[in-house]
């Protein structure tokens, strides 16, 4: 059913729009008396204005008495289809999108879908489908406000899905009960020297409580289940093309990530500070905002531009449509192009608990501020240096530039240091921390090196030639477990229309089981061995960095055994 709806909307966007303009004109659409009545039945709870407008439109298209229905006309037609055609062909202002819907549409669906067709489709669905409010809470709220029309709402499922990206195995669906969200924070990562982050980055953090009975303190400390929703560009190539980013040539989506991944990315990966500002929302507002953000997460597909359509503008747009106080607040109603400006404006408004950030020490204890970890690594490095007889590194940079095998050798040869590592837990933790940092850094480099190798070897376009080198079994695994995931990364992310339910989303990744098996991994390794280009500098780089990564992991494990 949902798939049909998706297809329908896709057809509208890809060319059916012009067909519908021809066939859906006032002149060409005729409605039988029975269908007319069916159109009006769902409108019992709607405003008189809406009922009148639809009745008038239906009247204009009413089939002359005695004429039997030919289906450019509607006999006893599908109510939803008839209503959609009627709305598409209407010129009645009451049935056309207004400025508010236009704004909502930009935020929820992006600029790519034609406004009037989206409106007609949404209104037709709203009036005829019970689950529309669960799929599209933003539009449902709007229609209710505009037409005072409650659709025949079915109760929504307790849990809503989010696709949460994870760098280990791609993306997974996380099911979240909005009632478990105890707070929503505006999350701000301080600026970095990279052009893309020169004004920082802004997103929304859902404070998710553990399932079951709990307390606010436990919810706050449940960081591993907190979710960050942030607008980002989807860069479907190896590196960021500044010109394309400036011209808005990258797609933008509302991505979901685990908070701890975001924290690791900023506070550890980029040594940035992270501020988390609680928004003053009551329970109903928070529940609705979670559902509406989920709607945007599943529906939105826009374009990203550094200075005009970025995380700051899109985040405030999302807050504006979901939170009336934000839209009308003294400071927040202004438009901010920079994340840092937006964050300051919200912090200085009455909409946020800015007192939580008055003392950063207290904020760090309470989970409203997460300091850059640079200071901790530098302290750990200084302690390790002091304990070693003759350290061959002076700072984190020079530490990372020593191969992990060499680092391990130096530790083993320093007998006194080894003995201290075994006896002094604090020192050992400092040493493990440095090796873990090497793992994290090399992991990032490994991903870059892997992407470069893929790009250089152009596996995607050489797929047929590669498959010809392999037997059927190896080719299948190579295709399913390597090429397909990569192809999915290159391709624009598939958007659904609204929040899906459990029937729309498989219980688990279909490929996961296949590609995780030991036999498949073995086959994949064999396939890669057969086709690899060992002379490639990128291949050498990838394997060098992989060895560095693997040896750093071995070092961490050895240190933990002391």
């Amino acid at each position: 059913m949902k798939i049909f709806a998706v297809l329908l909307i896709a057809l509208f966007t890809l060319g059916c729009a012009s067909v519908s303009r021809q066939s859906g004109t006032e002149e060409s659409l005729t409605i039988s008396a029975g269908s007319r009545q069916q159109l009006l039945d769902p409108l019992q709870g709607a405003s008189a204005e809406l009922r009148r407008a639809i009745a008038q439109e239906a009247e204009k298209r009413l089939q002359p008495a005695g004429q039997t229905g030919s289906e450019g006309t509607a006999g006893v037609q599908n109510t939803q289809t008839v209503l959609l055609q009627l709305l598409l062909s209407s010129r009645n202002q009451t049935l056309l999108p207004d400025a508010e819907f236009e704004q909502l549409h930009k935020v929820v669906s992006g600029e790519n879908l034609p406004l009037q067709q989206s409106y007609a489709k949404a209104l037709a669905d709203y009036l005829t489908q019970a689950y529309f409010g669960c799929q599209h809470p933003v539009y449902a709220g709007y229609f209710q406000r505009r037409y005072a029309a409650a659709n025949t709402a079915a109760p929504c499922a307790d849990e809503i899905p989010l696709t949460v990206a994870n760098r280990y195995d791609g993306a997974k669906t996380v099911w979240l009960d909005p009632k478990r969200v105890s707070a929503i924070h505006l999350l701000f990562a301080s600026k970095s020297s990279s052009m893309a982050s020169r004004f920082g980055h802004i997103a929304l953090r859902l404070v998710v409580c553990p399932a079951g009975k709990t307390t606010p303190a436990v919810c706050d400390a449940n960081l591993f289940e907190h979710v960050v929703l942030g607008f980002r560009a989807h860069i479907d190539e190896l590196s960021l093309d500044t010109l394309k980013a400036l011209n808005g040539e990258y797609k933008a989506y509302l991505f979901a990530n685990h908070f701890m991944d975001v924290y690791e990315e900023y506070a550890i990966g980029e040594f940035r500070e992270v501020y988390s500002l609680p928004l003053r929302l009551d329970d109903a507002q928070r529940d609705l905002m979670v559902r509406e953000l989920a709607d945007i997460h599943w529906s939105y597909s826009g374009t990203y531009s550094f200075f005009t359509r970025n995380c700051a503008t899109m985040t405030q747009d999302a807050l504006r449509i979901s939170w009336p106080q934000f839209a009308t607040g003294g400071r927040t109603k202004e438009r901010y192009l920079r994340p840092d400006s937006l964050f300051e404006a919200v912090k200085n408004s009455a909409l946020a608990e800015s007192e939580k950030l008055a003392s950063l020490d207290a904020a760090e204890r309470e989970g409203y501020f997460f300091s850059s970890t640079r200071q901790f690594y530098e302290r750990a490095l200084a302690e390790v240096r002091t304990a070693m007889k003759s350290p061959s590194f002076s700072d984190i940079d020079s530490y990372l530039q020593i191969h992990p095998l060499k680092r391990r050798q130096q530790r083993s040869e320093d007998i006194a240091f080894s003995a201290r590592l075994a006896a002094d837990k604090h020192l050992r933790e400092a040493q493990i921390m440095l090796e873990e940092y090497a793992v994290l850094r090399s992991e990032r480099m490994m991903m870059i090196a892997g992407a470069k190798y893929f790009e250089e070897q152009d596996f995607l376009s050489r797929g047929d030639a590669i498959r010809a080198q392999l037997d059927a079994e190896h080719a299948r695994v190579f295709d399913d477990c390597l090429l397909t995931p990569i192809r999915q990364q290159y391709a624009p992310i598939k958007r659904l229309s609204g929040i899906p339910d459990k029937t729309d989303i498989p219980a688990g990744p279909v490929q996961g089981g296949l590609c995780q098996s030991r036999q498949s991994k073995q086959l994949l390794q064999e396939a890669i061995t057969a086709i690899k280009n060992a002379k490639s500098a990128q291949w050498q780089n990838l394997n060098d960095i992989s060895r560095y990564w693997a040896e750093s992991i071995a070092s961490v494990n050895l240190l933990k055994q002391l």
Partner: protein
Amino acid sequence: MKKVVLISSLLVLITSFPAYSDSIVRVQCEEEDSGAEIYINGNFVGECPVDAPVKAGKAQLRARKIVRDDYEKVFEKQLRVVDGVAQRVEIMLSAPQLTAAASSKIKTAETTALLADAEAGDIEAMKKLAQRYDAGVGTKKDPAKAEYWRNEAEAATAQKQLRAAEAGNIEAMLDMAARYDTGAGVKKDHSQAALWRNKADAAKLEKAAQEELAKSKEKEISRQRRVDAAAPFKNVSGYFKLLSNPNKGEAFTNAVSSPLFLPVSTIADLTELPTKLTDSAKIQSEAAVRPSTWGKPDSMIARASLQQKTTDAAAGTPQIIAAVK
């Protein structure tokens, strides 16, 4: 006629007093042993061959022949002499051996030498000397001197073990602990005993750590060989310049976006190394919380880490955080 009667009477008289009469023992020998001195009950009775009158009862026969200076051949036998019954004994001399005088002279010389060694500090010589004074070998029996050299030997042994213990020998440390407990070779001192016992325990731990390190080192060498065998080792320092400065990693910054995102699992599948994704994911989750937990134990990150561990422990699941579940 009277003379005949007298002689006959004397013979009868002699033969009629058996308790006091002798029997004849004829001692015979090989020609080469001819001339050996024959002693009956320690009394020289002649040279072999010889017929010796021996009183009835038990008798000790000893034959000796000097073959060269300080060496002799000997034969000894216990005889049972029956009154009025002559017996013949064939002697078989031993191989040449030191004479008793010569043996005594040598033992005395050995004892003199042991004394010199003992006075020079030789612990084994001290112990042997004590035994000789006890038994009177090579010297007169002298229990006082025996005791003196026994004590000297114990004290010297204790000093030797002390030096070994101070040099790190674990067995010597334990021996010293026992000595201080019992006062063997040292003044009894229980605190010193405890001290050496603790030192021995610490040394055992240190030794175990060293052995572990040695094993690790062997593993490292082995691993490095494998790595070297797989591909020539390359200096990655240049490659890591970008890595070491996160803010220069424009290509990878995720501030606003995700560049081509290949999951670690995909990359790991691609490389020549066996994948260690389980380790890697676990390390990533622990690495994310360790800096703040270490540097700021009262931070929310530290609290969250603790809470997560408690949750995982309660659920009986491995402590891998939700981010990688």
